[in-house]
């Protein structure tokens, strides 16, 4: 370690001559010095260049291949939804007693993934975690797209999808009635609806200054007009910036509890019911930890290829990924603790139904799902105790994909094992998915990836104005520190 810190003196000054980011390890912390958040001796102009190049240059062949494949998948998904509406939800494997099967599992899976973006933008902003600036934009975009995927499933699971608007409290001329406000399912409508719209506003507001940068660099009049309209004629006026920063802080303050509330309410869908294995008070924190866990894993899965393809290694540095991996390790261990607590409570409560449910989870007909979940969610992130693995792009993608698989299985285990073995043994059953279940889960990835690829193609992937703000602050800090040293 000592030798390492000797060779890599990671300050803004010493990395001036270095161009290959792979040679720079900004993950070491030198006492008394802040490690630089971005590398490669960047100026304001070079940050603009690096980020705008993503949208201005011709897209690499890989983009076209990925977009072709994922848009095809997305179109097939929409076709399958049309078929589902035509034919009915009977094409899925949902059958007595497991009526909440894959559609709900997929909903919770995607909503969970959609937690990372706003968490990074809001909570890390309030905690003044400056490293968030390089990754927040892409993470927020990912959040919006994940919430879109999540929203599809309850919408089509209601059976008569064309009447899904009945969920909203609107003055109906046909029904003469209102929704039931004591039901967690209605809270869900409000929570997910608020989260989706507030995240969208947060994301869009954050993009306005960067869209103005895109506008001002545009060569073609059409591009200039489109970005000009999107950025609402932003000039970068200091009077505007003042209100903008105040608004951003306020939005962060609202979004931070909102993030925590969404998965709490989603967990209420389960916890407020009487089913053994669902009716527990541990669910809200356990779900929120799991959501952050899966969300960060998805951000890592997307950002590692993104920074490689678009050569953003100087802005999204190993330190950013290292920090995210530490959060994955922490939340993964929290999730593991939650699993253990559930088992402890099942034994300690001496409630025979609770006891049976958890024994059945681990050793019943769905043992394979349970142990897949434990392996992926609890064991695989433990690799991140080793710095070598935590800072290796290959290993972090492997682990993050394992985490995503594990988190899907967690929702499957919670939903299906409890429903298939409820209080009445005569109504026990074994859930079998159909081909449509599988295709319609796979299809949602097509929607997600298509939207994310279009985002990279047309919108600023990194919050340039925020990165520049951090550079300015860092330069001031360095300057002040240098002056301080001279005095002595």
């Amino acid at each position, binding site marked *: 370690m000592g030798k390492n810190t000797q060779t890599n003196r990671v300050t803004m000054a010493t990395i001036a001559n270095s161009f290959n980011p792979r040679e720079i390890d900004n993950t070491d912390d030198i006492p008394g010095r802040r490690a630089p958040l971005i590398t490669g001796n960047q100026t304001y102009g070079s940050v603009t260049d690096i980020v705008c190049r993503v949208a201005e240059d011709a897209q690499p062949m890989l983009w076209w291949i990925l977009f072709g494949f994922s848009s095809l998948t997305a179109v097939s998904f929409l076709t399958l939804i049309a078929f589902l509406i035509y034919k009915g939800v009977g094409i899925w494997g949902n059958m007595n007693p497991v009526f909440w099967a894959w559609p709900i599992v997929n909903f919770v899976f995607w909503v969970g993934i959609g937690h990372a973006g706003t968490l990074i933008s809001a909570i890390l902003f309030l905690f003044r975690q400056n490293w968030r600036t390089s990754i927040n934009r892409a993470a927020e975009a990912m959040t919006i797209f994940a919430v879109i995927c999540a929203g599809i499933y309850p919408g089509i699971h209601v059976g008569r999808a064309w009447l899904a608007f009945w969920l909203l409290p609107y003055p109906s001329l046909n029904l003469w009635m209102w929704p039931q*406000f004591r039901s967690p399912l209605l809270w869900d409508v409000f929570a997910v609806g*608020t989260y989706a719209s507030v995240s969208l506003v947060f994301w869009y507001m954050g993009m306005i*200054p960067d869209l103005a940068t895109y506008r001002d660099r545009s060569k073609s009049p059409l591009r200039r007009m489109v970005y000009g309209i999107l950025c609402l*004629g932003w000039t970068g006026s200091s009077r505007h910036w003042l209100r903008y920063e105040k608004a951003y802080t306020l939005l962060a303050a609202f979004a931070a509890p909102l993030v925590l509330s969404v998965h709490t309410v989603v967990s209420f869908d389960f916890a407020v019911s009487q089913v053994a294995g669902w009716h527990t008070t541990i669910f809200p924190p356990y779900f929120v930890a799991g959501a952050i866990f899966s969300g960060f894993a998805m951000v890592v899965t997307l950002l590692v290829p993104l920074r490689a393809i678009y050569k953003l290694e100087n802005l999204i540095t190993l330190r950013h990924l290292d920090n995210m991996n530490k959060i994955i390790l922490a939340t993964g261990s929290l999730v593991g603790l939650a699993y253990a607590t559930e088992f402890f409570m099942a034994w300690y409560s001496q409630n025979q139904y609770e006891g049976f449910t958890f024994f059945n989870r681990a050793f019943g007909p769905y043992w394979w799902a349970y142990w897949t979940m434990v392996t992926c969610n609890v064991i695989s992130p433990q690799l991140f105790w080793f710095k070598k693995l935590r800072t290796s792009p290959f290993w972090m993608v492997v682990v993050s994909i394992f985490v995503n698989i594990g988190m899907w299985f967690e929702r499957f285990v919670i939903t299906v094992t409890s429903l298939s073995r409820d209080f009445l043994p005569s109504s026990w059953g074994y859930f079998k998915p159909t081909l449509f279940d599988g295709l319609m889960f796979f299809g949602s990835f097509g929607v997600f990836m298509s939207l994310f690829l279009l985002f990279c193609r047309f919108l600023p992937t990194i919050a340039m104005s925020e990165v*520049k703000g951090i550079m300015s602050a860092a330069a001031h800090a360095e300057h002040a520190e240098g002056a301080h040293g001279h005095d002595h």
Partner: protein
Amino acid sequence: MSEHKPRKTTEKKVPKAFGWMAEYQDENSLLAAARKVRDSGYTKTDAFTPFPVHGIDEALGIKPTILPFIVLCAGITGLSTALLMQWWMNGVDYKYIISGKPFGITPASIPVAFELTVLFSAFTTFLGMIALNQLPKFSNPVFTNPRFDRATNDRFFLYVEAADKYYNRESVKELLGGTHPDSLDEVLEDTTPSALPRPIILGAILLVIAGLIPAMIILNIRAGYSTAPRFHVFFDMDFQPKKKAQQTTTIFADGRSMRPQVKGTVGRGQLEEQDSFYLGYDPAKLTAIDTLETGKFVSLQDSKTADGSAAKPAADGSAQTPAAPAAALNLPWIDKLPIEVSEANMALGKQKFETYCSACHGYAGFGDGLVHKRADALAQGYWLAPTSLHVDKVRTQPVGQIFHTITKGQGKMASYASSLNPKERWAIVLYVRALQKSRNADMSEVPADMVKTLDEVK
């Protein structure tokens, strides 16, 4: 044509100037210049930077924004909206009764109240920021300078507006020139045509009109009247792949979708129409009776005459109650009691007879109950006495027929099917049989050991 020429020359005149714009390389030069301009007394100033420069509000003398107060009001509005909505919708207008839980605002109202507070606050934050900044504003004189494109990239601009009350073109130029800017330009009026090109306006109007067409069609269909069948976008449950009664089918040879009952089976819920215990006669033997008699029987049940036409109420009103000639009731009565002849059943029959029958028929069955006595006294000869159970006509009836009379009623006697269950009715039949025997037997039928007891009673 000649009028156009002078106009064109007036348009070519020098564009209006809005102020001076100075450009700097970094934020420190900008801050220094901004302080200088502020200290010179100018207030209509602004800086344009690629990111929010720390300390610029102080350097330019910008006052804090009122946005947080607007947002506070919106948050309170959101909270009250959520609480009022839940209280009124679920506590007043449409009460859901669930497990005896209280109506109105309860802890269950918290999630929605929280979400709406956040929703209202967040949207007000965003829209308030946009409104206070007077955005969107697409035509702005600062954009006329091509160098200004770098204001969102890596350059810092300071702007002193001509609208300032101390503004003097030359002195401001001198002041800004003294701050060592990279460039110093006058902000000029945007002379490019501000109106949208005609094809774009035309296209937008066409698009709006085209967009309204589907809405108008739907509105017309929903609000108007039509004799054509309803157009179903979604079938919901209006059309189902099933056959209803009276419909035809190609599945069966006879073309009927309604199927006759399979022989030897009893339909669910139809036992009471199939079993002699509930009827008093054997339905299986009904077919043995000639059709005329069956027709008469049917007429008893649904007030139709034997030839099948509905009974019309006669002018004198005599057909108001179904005429039931006793002779028509020639049904395959059962003559063996379907219940056990036991002490318990006899006691049950006696109790029920005395409760329900004795009021008219009398305790001994002679048709001299209290009702009869009172009615006879009041009606003075018009009262038709209840039948005595000891006349030959009744005595010779099979048990099934007596059961049927209790079940369906007879003449003025009402049906007792709703008061007495079948077993109780059969028990009454048993008791009636005992009463009849007690009034019409000779000593040879009395068991030998009971003769002495009988003599003692006498």
